[in-house]
C-alpha cells in the first residue's frame, strides 16, 4: 500500500483560446517519486506541469498539494509555496543573468529570510555537490550549458523542496552532459527525499524515473508505479 500522494491533479482542463491544452487530465505524485511526464510536442505535458506547480491556473479541476488546494490559493500563497516547497529546472536554466552562479543558488534562501553569509555557505555546498563549485563566482552567461543546468539544479534543491519540477532539463545539452545532469538531479533529489516531476520526450531521460505518465492531446495515462 503506497502512502497518500503528495501532489494530485484531478480532472484538469485548460484551454489557450480555441486550443484545448488539458482535457480532464489527472495525475498523482508521491513523496520521493520521480515521475516522468512524457508525450509528443504540444501534447500538454508542460502545461500540466505548470498547473501542478501552481504557475498556471486550470480552467477547471483541482490541484492538491499535501492536502491543500493549490488552485484556490492566492498569488502570495502560491509564491510562498514555490519559495519553500518547490524547486524548478527548465530547459534554459532561467537563472538571473545579473547575479553570479553562487548568488543565483543562494537567492531562494535569501528570499526566505536567510542571511547572506549563511545562504551562500549552503549554496556553495550545493554547487560543489553538483560539481560546479568552480563557476561559483561566474555569471550564468560565462558558464557552459551543462554547468548552467547544474547550477539551476543546485538552485532548485537549495531550499530542500519536497517537489522538483524539471521541464526538459537536458533539452539544450549534448547527451554526455545530459546524462550527467540527470544523474546528479535524481541522485540529489533521492538523497533529500524530494519528488521530481520530469517533463521530457526522451526515453533515455525518462529512464531515470520511477514511473511515467503519458500525455496526449491533453489527456493523461499514468502507469502504475513499479516500486
Amino acid at each position, binding site marked *: 500500500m503506497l502512502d497518500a500522494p503528495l501532489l494530485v491533479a484531478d480532472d484538469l482542463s485548460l484551454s489557450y483560446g480555441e486550443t484545448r491544452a488539458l482535457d480532464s487530465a489527472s495525475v498523482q505524485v508521491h513523496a520521493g517519486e*520521480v515521475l516522468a511526464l512524457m508525450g509528443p510536442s504540444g501534447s500538454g505535458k508542460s502545461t500540466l506541469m505548470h498547473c501542478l506547480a501552481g*504557475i*498556471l491556473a486550470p480552467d477547471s479541476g483541482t490541484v492538491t498539494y499535501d492536502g491543500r488546494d493549490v488552485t484556490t490559493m492566492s*498569488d*502570495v500563497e502560491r*509564491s*510562498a*509555496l*514555490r*519559495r*519553500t516547497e518547490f524547486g*524548478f529546472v527548465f530547459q*534554459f536554466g*532561467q537563472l*538571473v*543573468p*545579473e*547575479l*553570479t552562479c553562487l548568488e543565483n543558488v543562494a*537567492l*531562494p534562501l*535569501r*528570499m*526566505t*529570510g*536567510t542571511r547572506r553569509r*549563511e*545562504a551562500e*555557505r*549552503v549554496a556553495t*555546498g*550545493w554547487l560543489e*555537490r553538483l560539481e560546479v563549485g568552480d563557476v561559483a563566482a561566474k*555569471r550564468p*552567461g*560565462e558558464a557552459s*550549458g551543462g554547468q*548552467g543546468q547544474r547550477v539551476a539544479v543546485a*538552485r532548485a*534543491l*537549495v531550499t*530542500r523542496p519536497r517537489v522538483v519540477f524539471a521541464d526538459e532539463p537536458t533539452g*539544450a545539452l549534448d547527451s554526455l552532459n545530459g546524462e550527467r545532469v*540527470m*544523474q*546528479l538531479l*535524481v*541522485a*540529489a533529489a*533521492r*538523497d*533529500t527525499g524530494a519528488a521530481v516531476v520530469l517533463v521530457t520526450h526522451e526515453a533515455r531521460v*525518462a*529512464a*531515470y*524515473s*520511477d514511473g*511515467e505518465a503519458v500525455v496526449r492531446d491533453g489527456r493523461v495515462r499514468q*502507469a502504475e508505479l*513499479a516500486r
Partner: protein
Amino acid sequence: MTATAIPRTGAGPTRPPHRPRPALAQWAADLALGVRLSVSGGRAGWVRLALIAAGIGLGVTMLLGAATAPAVVAAQQARVDDRSAPLWVPPEDAMAAGPDTVLTEVVRSQFRGSDIEGVLVHAEGDEAPLPPGVERLPGPGEVVLSPALAELMASNGADALRGRWGEAIGTIGPEGLRGPGELTFYAGSDHLSVEELASRTDRFGGVEPADADPDPALLFLAVVATVVLLLPVAIFVTSAVRFGGEARDRRLAALRLVGADARMTRRVAAGETLTEAVLGLAVGGLFFGALRLVLPRVVSVFPGDLRPVPGLVALVVVLVPVAAVVVTMSAMQRVVVEPLGVVRRSGDRRRRLWWRLVLPVIGLVLLAPLFGGRGASSFSELEQVTVPAGMGLLLLGVALLLPWLVEASVRHLGGGGGGVAWQLSVRRLQLDSGTSVRAVSGIAVSVAGLLALNGIVAGLESGAADVTERSATEFQAEIYGTDGDPRWEQLADVRGVREITMTSTVQTTDPATGATVWIDIAECAALAVDTEVGDCADGDVFAAAPTNGTVPTAGTTVDLGEPGSAQAASTWTVPDALTTVPTVTGMMASPEGEPARFFITPGALEGVAPTTDSSTLVALDPAVPDAMDHVRTAAAQIDASTHVDPVLTEGLAPILADIRQALVAGTAALLLLIGASLLVNVVEQMRERRQLLAALLAFGVRRRTLSASVLLQLAVPVVLGLALAAVTGTGLSTLLQSGMEVPVQLDWAGIGTTSGVAALVVMLTTAASLPLLWRLMRPEGLRAE
C-alpha cells in the same frame, strides 16, 4: 519501469531554518535585491545602467540648469539694484546739491552691434557716494570700465572704441557688474545738470531701478520657452527609465520562478529603478558641475551665481526618483510578470482615444484667453499661470495621442503590399509599437513646442519690422538733440563719414481741429529717411495724411512748436502747392493712430528755421570699417550723453536674433538628447531580438532588407509624430501669436527646418545602429548560450 542506477552522494547541505522577515525588513530586502540587480550584470549590465544614468543625468542637468536660472536672474538683479541711481525727476523735485551728492545720467552706446550701457557721473562734493565695485569716481575725461569693456577696448581692431569716454583709470569690481561679460562704464562729466537729463543722489542702490519692466511679449515667450524645453526633458527622463525594460521583465520572471510574489517583484523593480534614478541624479550633478565650469566661458554669468535654487533642487531630487518609480510601476501595470516570463496585457487590447484627449482638451480650455485675440499684457495673474499650463497640457497631449495614432494607422497598413522590409516593420509595429513610439514621442513634443516658439519669434520679428520700418537712404546714422550746436559739424571730418545734414522735427497743433501735427524740416535726402519724397527740390513741401482726418488745409498757419516753447513765436503757413505722400506708420503713432505730418525742405520755410529739437543725420562710407563706431566715439567726445542711432533701427530684432540662436542651441541639445534616447531604444530592441535576426539571416534575408526594416520601424512613427507635431505646433503657434498681438503667420521655414532636422536625427540614429545590427546578424547569434 525500472529506475536507472543513481550513485548516492549524500544528502547535501542542510537547509537553514526558514525565518520569515518582518514586513519592513522584507521591503528593505526586496529593495536591496533590486539595487543589487541593477548594479550587477557584467559588461552588458553596466552598459545598460550607464545609459540609463546618462539619460537621466542629461535630463537632470537640464532641470538643474532651469533651477539655476531664477538664482542667476535674482543675483544679477540684486547687483543691478545695488548700483542703480534714481530716475530723473523734474528739477524742482530734485534733492539739493551737497558734499555727499553725485549727478548721474545713464547713456547707451554700441560697438559692432554689442550694446554698451554706462553712467556719466559728476561728484558734487568730497563725500560723493561710490557705486559698487568702483574705488574712485572718475573725473571729467576719465572712465572706469568693466573688465569685459576694458578687454574689448584693448583688443586688436577696437580703434573705433578707444577713447570714447576718456582715459581709463580702473575697472569695475564684480560686485558692480551684472555679469563678467557686461559692457559698462562710469565716465566722468562736468556738464551734467538736473535741468537736463541728470539725476542727483546721495547713494547708489536702494532706489527704484531704472530698468523698465520687461516687454510682456518677451516675458511670455520666456515662459513658453521654459515649458517647451523642459517638457521633452521630462519625457526623456521617463523614457530613459524604461531603457532595458525587456531585460528587466525577464529578470523579474526568473525571480517569480523562485518564489517572489507580484508585490515582491514590484518592490525589486522599484529598487532597481531607484538605484538608476539616484545614479542618474549623481551623474546629473556631475554634468551640472562641469556645466558650471564651462558656462561662464560661454555666457556672461559669474560662477558664483550658478547656484540652483535649493527648493527647486530638492524638487528635482525628490521628483526624479519618484517619477522614475511611478513610470516603472505604471509600465509594469501593462505586463504580468509570471514565472514563465512576461505576458503583455496590451497585446490584443486596442489603445483607447478618449482618455488621451482629456489632457489636450483641458489644455485647450486653459488656452481660452488666447482665442479672443487678447494680448498677453492684458492677462490676469491667474491667466498668466493657466495659459502656459494649458500649453504644457496640449504638448503633453502629443505624447499621449501619438501611441494611439501610430496604432490606429499601422492597423490599416497592409504588411503584404510592400517588400519584405516593409512587411517586417509593419508587422512588428502592429504587434508592439510602444517601444518605437516611446522613443519618438520626445521628438514629437519637442518639434511641436519648437514650432510654436519659432512661430512666435517669426510673428514678433514681423511685428518689429512693421514698427521700425524706415526707408533705406543714403544716411545711416542719426544723432538726436544736436540742436544746431556747431560742434556737431566736426562729425563731417570723422573717419568714414561722407556727409552730414541737420534735421528738425517739431510738434504743433492744427488751429482748426486741435489735432497734433508733426513737421519735419530737412533737405530732400534727409526727408527720404522717413517718407517717399520722390522728385524733390529745395522749397518743396510734402504732406502725409493722418490715420483719421485730413492734413491742415492750405493757408492754415501753424506755430513751429508747442505753445510756450522756444519755437512758438515762429510760424509757417501751409502752402497751396504740396505733394501728398503715403501715411507714415509707426514713428509718431498715438492711440488715435498716425498724426498728420508735413515734410518741409528749408527753402519752403522762407528763412524761419527752428534750432532746437533738431538732429544730425550722418552718411557713412561703406568702405571704411567700423565707420559707425568712429562716429559714436566722436559723438561721445563732443557730448557723452548723446546717442547715435542707426537710421534703420532694429527694434526687437537683435533680441529676437539672440532668442533664435538660443532656440537653435536648445533644439540641438534636445535633439541630441532624443537622438541618444532613440539609439539606445533601437540598440535595446536589437539585442532583445538577436536570435530572431540571426535566424532571419540564416534563411537568406539580406542585410539591407533588415536594415531597411529597422529604419522603417522608426520612420513610420516619426512621420506620424512629425505630422501630429506640425498640426499641434502650428495651431499653438497661431493661438500664441494672436495672444501676443503679433501678426499671425505660419513659419514654413521653421516647420521645414525643425522637421527636417528631426528626420535627420532618425536617419543618423538608424545609421549608427547598423554596425550593431550587422554584428548581431552573424550566425553566432543563433547560439542560445
